[in-house]
């Protein structure tokens, strides 16, 4: 039980920190760190760097992007659940 409590506490702490920073309203936008890195590249090159190729396909909207991200998480979660369910069930049989 100790492990579960520790893991839960770590996740809660991260969430509390997030709420604290969000509550301070320092103008945080909660964008992706890679987007910010693109800003750093702009700063370093004086805005002259243009990506020399763009993605073949981009999700047409934020909704579709989050759909595909959820799908990725779901595929992983199904396999994890199957693995532990199968072997736990076999042990108790």
């Amino acid at each position, binding site marked *: 039980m100790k492990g579960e409590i520790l893991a839960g506490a770590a996740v809660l702490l991260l969430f509390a920190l997030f709420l604290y920073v969000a509550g301070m309203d320092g103008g945080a936008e*909660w964008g992706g*760190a890679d987007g910010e890195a693109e800003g750093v590249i702009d700063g370093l090159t004086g805005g002259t760097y243009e990506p020399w190729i763009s993605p073949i396909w981009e999700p047409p909207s934020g909704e579709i992007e989050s759909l595909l991200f959820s799908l990725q998480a779901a595929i992983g979660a199904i396999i994890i659940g199957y693995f532990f369910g199968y072997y736990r069930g076999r042990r108790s049989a």
Partner: protein
Amino acid sequence: MEGFLPHPWWEVWYVLSLPVVVYGIYRINQLAKERRETLPLLALAGAFIFVLSSLKLPSVTGSCSHPTGAGMGAILFGPAITAVLCLIVLVYQALFLAHGGITTLGANVFSMGIAGPAVAYLVYRGCTRSKMNFYVSIFFAAALADLATYLVTSLQLALAFPSATGGVLESFGAFGTVFALTQVPLAIVEGVVTALIFKYIIQVKGDVMVRLKVIDEKRLGKLKEMISA
């Protein structure tokens, strides 16, 4: 970040990653032939990377990033096999999410699939040798691997975009502030979650971990006793 690594850097990272991925595929084939009992665990390690790398979490810096999940695969199977697992996830994200990229795939496989896992592997082995608590070893291995991945990403960008005034070092500081700092709390969460999932693996598949030489029989016995107590 498609197109954000200029020539010759994207080619450099492809060349460095390719042999590791090829060796990883060879090792997976070996497992599939000679140690089929390890394959469910391999699927689990891949699935763990799928889940963790899909979760964009908010961090204290006011931006979001995602953990990698690669530490677990590295502890169980070593860096080469983990590189192949990461490649699968990175291709999915590059093709369907415009996240990452095909031209930056080499660089991303190197940071997430090779550098991070190498750190996880070495930290875990080092901690085990110094008889550190099993779960604490897993925590450090996974958390430091996560952090190392983003430090290497920062270095990759710094090499490609050295600052006009302070060179690579100054750029590394700038990218590191964005990536590595954001990553610190996420790395801690990844370390804790990875340690927890290893508790469950010990319960159901500890014997396979012994066969993979991740842990010895005596230690496994003690850990199992601890869980059931």
